[in-house]
């Protein structure tokens, strides 16, 4: 494969103050020595619970914060050596989508203003082509321009807001989107729609995607590779199918065991199996470990 779009080498981010004498002080490593590559057209999922450092990692990949040590590179070029034009290129090629669309859209801007600002700033449209571009963009995220172009964010539902945030990210024809929990603030049926939208966009545009999520169901549906984070470290990484199908790490296993299934029959089987395991364990005097493999048998 060619050069990855983004690569991180041994990046560390610590928060808190370091001791004056060079010791660790009360500094905590939110991200602790992580390596990763994101290739063109690939979806990499970063999984972990809150506090595992996945959002901090995303912010470093976006260049919003600098790693304490280590290096993030865009097509092999380290961010530390970026000039202003490099940053402009990078900001255009790598776009964020955040969890809460309401707070990532300007409440005082209409939908068309939000999108035209981006298009004009990056010279992707002229005054003449602007309207057509906006119509097309909105169509690509499944919204009718005639109906939505003059709305303000508060006049949109959560799902519509997230579609606008996606349209804004897509406006600059990025190579990579970094999405931090893009679904978790949405209703379930809307989650399914946005998930399908992301899947269709990434396949139709050869878009790279870094998806931060604590929801394994979403990760399962969309990603090619997955990284599982726990307390700032990568505890497991590999192709999604392999990691979720045959997890090697205990934490990954517990995440899988906690995955809900939309099937009462299956849920019941799992419960019965777990009750049996608990009963057996208490009989033999051991602590029971909930295990997804065992639970489904």
């Amino acid at each position, binding site marked *: 494969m060619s050069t990855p779009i983004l690569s991180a080498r041994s990046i560390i981010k610590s928060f808190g103050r370091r001791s004056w004498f060079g010791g660790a002080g009360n500094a905590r490593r939110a991200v602790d020595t992580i390596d990763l590559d994101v290739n063109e057209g690939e979806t990499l999922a970063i999984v972990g619970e809150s506090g595992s450092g996945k959002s901090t990692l995303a912010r470093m990949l976006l260049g919003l914060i600098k790693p304490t040590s280590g290096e993030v590179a865009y097509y092999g070029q380290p961010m530390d050596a970026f000039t202003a034009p490099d940053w402009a290129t990078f900001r255009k090629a790598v776009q964020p989508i955040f969890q809460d669309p309401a707070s990532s859209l300007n409440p005082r801007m209409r939908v068309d203003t939000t999108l035209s600002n981006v298009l004009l700033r990056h010279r992707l449209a002229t005054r003449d082509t602007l309207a057509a571009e906006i119509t097309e963009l909105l169509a690509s995220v499944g919204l009718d321009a005639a109906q939505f172009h003059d709305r303000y964010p508060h006049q949109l539902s959560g799902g519509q807001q997230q579609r606008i945030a996606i349209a804004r990210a897509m406006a600059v024809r990025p190579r990579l989107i970094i999405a931090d929990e893009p679904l978790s603030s949405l209703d379930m*049926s809307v989650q399914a729609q946005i998930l399908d939208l992301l899947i269709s966009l990434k396949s139709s545009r050869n878009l790279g995607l870094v998806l931060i999520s604590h929801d394994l169901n979403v990760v399962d549906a969309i990603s090619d590779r997955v990284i599982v984070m726990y307390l700032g470290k990568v505890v497991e990484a590999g192709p999604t199918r392999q990691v979720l199908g045959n997890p090697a790490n205990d934490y990954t296993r*517990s995440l899988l*065991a906690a995955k809900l299934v*939309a099937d009462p029959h299956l849920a019941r089987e799992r419960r019965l199996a777990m009750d049996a395991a608990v009963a057996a364990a208490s009989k033999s005097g051991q602590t029971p470990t909930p295990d997804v493999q065992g639970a*489904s048998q």
Partner: protein
Amino acid sequence: MSLSPAGPPLLSARDVKVHLRVHRRIVKAVDGVDLDVYPGQCVGIVGESGSGKSTLGRAMTRLLPNVEIAELSGSVRFCGDDVLAMAPETMRALRRHRGLSMVFQDPLSYLNPTLRIDRQLAEALRHLADRRAVQQKSAELLQQVGLDDTARILRLYPHELSGGMRQRVLIAMALAPDPQILVADEPTTALDATVQYQVIQTLRRLNKERNLAMLIITHDLGMVAELCDQVYVMQGGKIVEAADVFTLFDAPQNAYTASLLAAARRLHQTKVLGSAATP
């Protein structure tokens, strides 16, 4: 686990309407709902945001804000007594002694940030005679929700607890009056997957071991599948389908229910888990 309804329902709603006044318009948040919860049963109300499920839950526990209500009609009966018509003192007694408790979505906003957990639990245990009894019962309640390190947790402030611990502390507080029914509005939405699962298991255990009836309000059909016996699907203030959990998932009668299920299956699909999840 699904109980066949024997005897009268513990909590029942008949033709409940809650119409709210929003910017001079009337919003029919709940529009003619019938619903029953039998002793020991776990009932789910599912719907998307704006379907009126939370308003229904609040009407049934009489926790609606008074100001915005344009119409509140119908009857909600707890053990035969009309909750909506009750005098405030009777309602308070019902919450404190005979057992109707609530748990909400965001645990942090329901805990007092300036008080340690022991003080907040003690407030829910004011009916107990002396301090020793309160301490003992507090520890017992925390253990019931799976928080075993009670001595330490009781001395902590809410901000020192994780999200899952906070929610379990709130459930413990809700259990203090020894309720017969627990109404939980999106009890796990703010939580991580593993923590969500722990809280669901805690609720399930309470349902089973204490025969505690539950009314779970959620948008997550995965949670319904995990926990509930009976399910009501709500859309636009009305119940569009009601069935036991197996019937609802196996053969939904309503198109909206079917679309919710399709979305949930899309999100809860089990394909990669192949060996682990397909029986």
